[in-house]
């Protein structure tokens, strides 16, 4: 079954009388377990597409089926619940809460859920990104690479269907970036659907499939022929 199925998706930004088309006639499907990179230059509409796919924004017209359900008519509260249950986010700028411990940051999505044993879930999630030794560190006491791994742990903690990674290596050095890509590939190998948004071909090549977007249209949608496999950071080898 398709996880994501969008048909004739269109998005316009309306400022007063001026209508700016951002996305036009977008069609594609994503299956469970895929690793898709959405690529395009800045201003191409790739971020807007990601926001619509992750229920942060709504399309102007077109259909969006998630797990076979048309979500276009759902209200804000239901979309918030969907984001909590089904979506994990990894942002370029990490978006961790300042003056807050690593553990509490990872617990953040859980406090908006009904899940029990929140501490245990958060610790397990942090263990899977190799940060068990940083639980009680504050977010300003850890490195950039570690911050992004905390963000991945946070994205995973509610066991979502899909993880959206928006330029996850954009603020990192190559070694840390490599670790992040390794973790994402590892998650994908375990069956998690990953949607990566990037403008860098090197990063996109870690995915299995690349959708190119330009000026609001899909330019190409093809499998990655020579996939880059990220090498694990030594600290992650157990």
């Amino acid at each position, binding site marked *: 079954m398709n996880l994501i199925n969008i048909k004739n998706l269109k998005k316009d930004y309306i400022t007063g009388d001026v209508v700016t088309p951002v996305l036009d006639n977008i069609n594609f499907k994503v299956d469970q377990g895929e690793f898709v990179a959405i690529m395009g230059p800045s201003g191409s509409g790739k971020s807007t597409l990601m926001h619509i796919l992750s229920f*942060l924004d709504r399309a102007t017209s077109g259909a969006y089926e998630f797990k076979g359900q048309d979500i276009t008519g759902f209200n804000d509260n239901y979309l918030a619940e969907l984001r909590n249950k089904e979506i994990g986010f990894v942002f370029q700028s990490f978006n961790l809460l300042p003056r*807050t411990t690593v553990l509490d940051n990872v617990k953040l*999505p859980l*406090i*908006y859920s009904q899940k029990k044993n929140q501490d245990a879930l958060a610790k397990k999630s942090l263990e899977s990104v190799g940060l068990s030794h940083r639980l009680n560190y504050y977010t300003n006491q850890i490195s950039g690479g570690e911050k992004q791994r905390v963000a991945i742990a946070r994205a995973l903690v*509610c066991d979502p269907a899909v993880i959206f990674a928006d330029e996850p290596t954009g603020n990192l050095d190559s070694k840390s970036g490599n670790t992040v890509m390794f973790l994402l590939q590892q998650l994908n190998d375990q069956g998690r659907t990953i949607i990566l948004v990037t403008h860098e071909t090197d990063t996109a090549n870690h995915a299995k499939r690349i959708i190119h977007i330009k000026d609001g249209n899909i330019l190409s949608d093809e499998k990655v022929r020579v996939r880059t496999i990220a090498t694990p950071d030594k600290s992650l080898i157990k």
Partner: protein
Amino acid sequence: MNPLLIIKLVIKNLLARKGRTLLTILGITIGVAGVIIVISLGAGAQSLILGQVTKLGSNLLYVQPGKTADSGAPIPGLVITSLVESDAVALRDRSQVPDATGVNASVKGSASVVWENKSIDATFMGTDEEYSKVTNFTMQAGQFFSAAENTGGANVVVLGSEISQQLFGDSGTNPLGQVIKVKSSVQSQAGGVPLRVIGVIAPRGSAFTQNQDELIFMPLVIGQEQILGIHYLNTISIKVDDAANVSSTIAAVNTVLKQQHHILDEVNVDFTIHNQADAVKILSTITNALSLFLVAMAAISLIVGGIGILNIMMVTVAERTREIGLRKAVGATKKAVRNQFLLEAILLTSLGGLVGIIIGILISYLISLLMKYLGYDWAFVVSVLSIILSVGVSVLTGVIFGLFPAIKAAKLDPVEALRYE
């Protein structure tokens, strides 16, 4: 979202900015402290007034010469001589005024009191033996003068405890039996009127600005004729047996005095009857009005404090836009975000209120200590109602002034919020 978790989160956010939190709550703190202090002072003043009344004795009527001018105060310097001792005698007639248990005629003036080489300025009362029936006091030494001493115009005097202390305290002389001289500017007798001390009244404190312990008392005729050189009275005080009979007694006194003064027409009435209960009522009204005014001032402070909260919450929401975006991205509903910021505002104002209550109680207590030190019967009262009111108002201020920023936070578009720099 678990409310306990929200509270934990909010406290953490407030602690992260201690200085700002402190400044923010200051307005609320001052407002609430103001309310507590004003209500406490009001209660203290009330107790003071009631204390004064019991000191003077309750159910008292005062008759004074001259008609109460509706058009304003009497002409300064005008001396009204209409009230005389025979009026007091007539009022003692139980068939005419059945519920009066004491009728006391008096004059009052100031004079120098001299003993050996000491001279003290004092207020004296020329009064009769019924003074003890209209006023509450006990003797510290000796006794008050008798009816015979009064009518006979005996050269005797009874001293207030402070006057006695001032005259005889240093030398340790027993005041009883000593002869003092009382001099006033109008008397004819050179060197003053010599009076023998026959009693000292135990300390009573102040009543309505007059320190009762600085008074001296002598037979009416001595005060009138030898010291003041007059034949009329300043006041007739009438003690009524029961509060229920006060108004009937006023009517009876009115009838007797009109007969005495041969007055047929209401316009010519030349005396005024004051009711002590009325005076208390007026004083209470004044204190209440003053309290209300001060509470209004405190309320303005609360509003200003509330605007401070509004301002800081707007800043907080703007500062934490990305955090709000993130929370929404990971599943926070509008309601959850709104509640978080609303609770933060309420916690801020409640904290301010709590500090205000503590400061208010402390200051009220210090004021009561000061008043007691100054010799007033001041009760330290903090009503539960004022505390409940303060807590309620603090929470309400948080709700009112926190709601707008909280709704603003809740309405933020998550995409915009996440991009916010």
